[in-house]
């Protein structure tokens, strides 16, 4: 059942300062679920801007940020520091910042790999260029007419994005962007589903601040760092706990 709640807010007189927030949920199949199972998982969740597991995309004057809610963030960092013995690299706490005017995209890792590195990392590069193929396939997402677009990333990942031009923001979750409308859903291979769950306009015109604190590096340098950190090794924590990285 499609369910829409509408609240009327005050009209802003200045279009220049319009900013929008979109809440997303990210769902992963790992090796246990199939994509169909993620639909059931989504139904059980508390979604929207109050979601404890959700992400938020903020769009303002050609700049965007995408990441977890700040207060949710603190909780996530704490949880990771007391996590179980196996260190997984499947889900990273990463925020994305895009600036269309300056053609910059930043991947921001807070407290990257806390066991072995434990520092913030700012990976800066150009805005990724996606060769979107807009298909004939159309659909409806919560009353918005959507179309399906496909592309393939440089690493071979197959991306399928549902977007609507009824919301004229050429943006999407993570570093996805560039379609003639807001991306409401992204599917990455058979592994990841990112789903928009709420949209609102924000009156508070606080500008998006790009991260400045952290180790700055290029994508190539970051890849080298990852290789070094994620090679198989045994880590002995100060408290004597042994972590095996495979």
């Amino acid at each position, binding site marked *: 059942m499609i369910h829409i709640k509408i609240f009327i807010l005050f009209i802003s007189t200045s279009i220049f300062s319009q900013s929008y927030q979109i809440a997303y949920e990210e769902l992963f199949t790992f090796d246990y679920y199939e994509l169909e199972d993620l639909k059931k998982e989504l139904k059980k969740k508390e*979604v929207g801007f109050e979601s404890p597991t959700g992400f938020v995309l903020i769009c303002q004057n050609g700049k965007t940020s995408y990441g977890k809610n700040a207060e949710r963030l603190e909780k996530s960092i704490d949880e990771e520091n007391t996590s179980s013995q196996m260190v997984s690299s499947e889900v990273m706490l990463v925020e994305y910042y895009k600036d269309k005017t300056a053609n910059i995209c930043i991947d921001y890792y807070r407290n990257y790999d806390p066991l072995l590195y434990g520092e913030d990392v700012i990976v800066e590069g150009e805005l990724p260029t996606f060769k979107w193929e807009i298909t004939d396939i159309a659909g409806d*997402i919560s009353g918005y007419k959507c179309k399906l677009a496909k592309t393939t990333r440089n690493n*071979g990942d197959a991306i399928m994005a549902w977007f609507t031009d009824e919301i004229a923001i050429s943006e999407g979750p993570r570093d996805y962007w560039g379609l003639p*409308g807001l991306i409401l859903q992204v599917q990455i291979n058979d592994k990841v589903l990112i789903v928009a769950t709420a949209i609102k306009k924000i009156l508070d015109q606080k500008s998006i601040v790009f991260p400045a604190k952290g180790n700055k590096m290029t994508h190539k340098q970051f890849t080298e760092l990852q290789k070094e950190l994620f090679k198989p090794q045994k880590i002995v924590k100060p408290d004597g706990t042994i972590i095996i990285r495979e």
Partner: protein
Amino acid sequence: MRKQYFLCLIAVLLFVKLQAQYEVRGSIKTLESQDPLPYATIQLLDVKSSKTISYTTADTNGIFNLQTEKTGTYRFKTSYMGCLSFLDTIVIEKPVVFKNVFLKKDVEALEEVVLKYEPKVMKIENDTITYNLEKLTTGEERTLANIIEKLPGVKLNNSGQLIANGKLVKKLLIDGEELFKNQHRTTTESITAKMVEGVRYLDKYQDFGNIKGFDNKQTNALDVSIKEEYKNKITGDFKAEGGHESKYLTKTNLYRFGGQFKFGFIGNWNNLGKQSITNLEYDELRGIGFDEIDKNGFKIDKTEDSSPKFLEPTLDIEERINLFGALSLIYKPSSKTKISFLNVISNSKQKQFLLNNRRFFDLPAANQIEQRNVQSDFLLNTSVFEFGYQPSSTSFFEYIVNFNPHSSNEDFIITNTTATAVTSINQSQYNQQYVLDQKLSYLTNISSKTLLKATGLLVLDATIDDLEIISSTPAFLLEDASLLEQNGSKKRNFYGYQLKTISKFKKEMLRVEHGTIFTDTDFENIVANQPEFTNSFGSSRIDSYLNASYEGKLSKRLIYTGGLGYKFVQLERFGESFDNSFLLPSLKIDYRMSTSKNLSFDYSYNIALTVDTQLHPNSIIDNYFSIKSPSQVKSNQLLPSHLFGLYYSNFKIKTGTTFSTYTNYNYTPTFISFNNTITEEGIVTSSNIIGEAQWQWNFGLSFDKRFKSKLGIFSNFSWFYSEEPNSIRGEQNQATTLVLKNKGGIYSRFRKGVNFNLGLDLEIIEYTSSLLEITNKAIATKPYLVFNGNLLEKKVLWSIGGEYANYKTDLDETNVINIYPKVTYEINDNFEILIKGNNILNIDNAEITRNFNTINYSESSVVDTLEGYIVFGLYYRL
């Protein structure tokens, strides 16, 4: 300088204009205050379907530039959050159209919206795999073949065919077209690496002629895209090499990509000895357009239709001069029509020298030492013309003509020494064949669920086989037989029709086929003055069949295909007429464990009839020491067979690790066997008899594991075992053959430094006869090691390889050390020089040892193999 600058500027402008011919330029502002709207979205939509043709976003000043490739009328849509969208019609006729848009504020646009919906999940079946060439290649690659070596799960097999993720690649597309059909090796060696933009594997590629909603032309393909700068012009390269000892090579590849008309030409003239086309590649060429019919109804006996024996891969060649040419033309004037023409010509002149030690198991007194010099001239030519017309998405018309003439001329000079005599023999063998195949078919959907295909077929096949033997003693001890001339001819014409329907349901598919083929054959074989060798007979045959196969799903992963065929055969030959009908079941089960793991099983039952040439009532001379005696097989003999197969494959795209294994078991309760006898003079006579219970089992396993794309380990192992009863001098014999092959090793793919490839190629063949209580074995062991690297920022590429080949039979043993160095230097984008060698330690001919077994005798031969060479070359790229 200024002049050059302006010329460059004009060239750039022209280039830009060619890329995107039409533009819509303008600005987006608010209606009320004329303020620019940064990052507003602008789209061109199809008027009827609202499909997005082109789109862009405005810059920070609200200025936009939207490009499209075609003129026409479109819907023009502009959107901005907080404003009402603007939708208009726009006509694009000129290169630049200006359009300024003013958007009205949307007073109702402010709301918080909670989206609750069921996500749309798309099944990605990995039917398209895009290879990241930047990651996989090192920049040292010179040809498409070099690139393909680096792609995980993709390789060229020994027969020159591409295999991707365990499956045979049916189409190799270059710039969207299959230029040289299934000549994968030839094509990949002729496309330069610099031309290649990208490579994709398409598991569900729909070729021209596919009917909407059906998979009639769906197959798998490796799609190679070509860079724009190489399109719409003639591109290619030339190569010339020459060196010691009197070695030369000239080669050219020319292409035209892009646009409605594409062509490719490959020319190669050399005496370096490499075979220009293999027997499997030739079979693939001949079978273009006819696989379906052969598979479903008209089972052509392989003994009648085998490819020329001079195409069989062999090392026992002393010298080979090759002239090879391939021309491909493809013209697509519209999306509905396609015309293509392919011509392949190959001419090889060869010399062989062999020293044979022929041992007769049953009659050691007849053992022979034989010195054989052979000079051969082979010519083959294949022309394929295809015309396709698809007036709508629901129908397709196709006409294919395939013309294959070939000829071979072999002269043997033989000195044959036995315990009692020395005989000199000259044998000349001339064979000429042409086959003309024509197929006309029409497809249409007769309902939303059913496709109908009607096909008409006509094949004309004629062969001449002449043999002349001049012997210092009467050949075969026949009177007046110092000169024997045998003239043979064979004609086989068949024509017929096939009707096929494919019905697709939700999860199932039903295929029904009916066809009738009429075949007329004539065979004649005459030896002057020797009436016991005269054969003249013919036959008329009608094959009619009705097959049905049903494909269903027991679950998401388990798919089965069950088939049942009814076949009726009416045959007239040797004054007899008979008819017979059979039921032929088949079953296939596929268990798709995941997108990358597959297990399948299949079984089929077939009944073949004997072919005319297996039933000759009088003798036929085979060669200077063997005769085929009159056949003892009945004209109406049926030959049933059961075939079981089990296959498993697993591949991982990201790591490139592949693993596959298969096993086939073929059991033939009744088959054509031989009864062979040997005379004291060492003449072999063989007659066809019926054998019972032949079985063959083969097993193969291959894996290729890559470690972080830098190191790999691989192995290709195959094991073949057969047991076949036959007769020796009328007594029952059980012959077993075992062939074991393994090629395995380790290799590196470092982006910097030196790479290596270390491995071992092993082949063991063992033959056993129960009656004679003998076992013959031949072993070829070839360890090899190759290093390669680059210098001066990849301007210099070098490689040096070495192979130690040991050939051993029960009688002889030879060793060959083959060193093959190569250095190329890229002078600039167009020119390259090279020096290369092969078998440089054996510039004079090397020798290898070979073994050949029959049920009566074994031959252990020491043969001259290709001599080594060192050549210097110049390469020019257009």
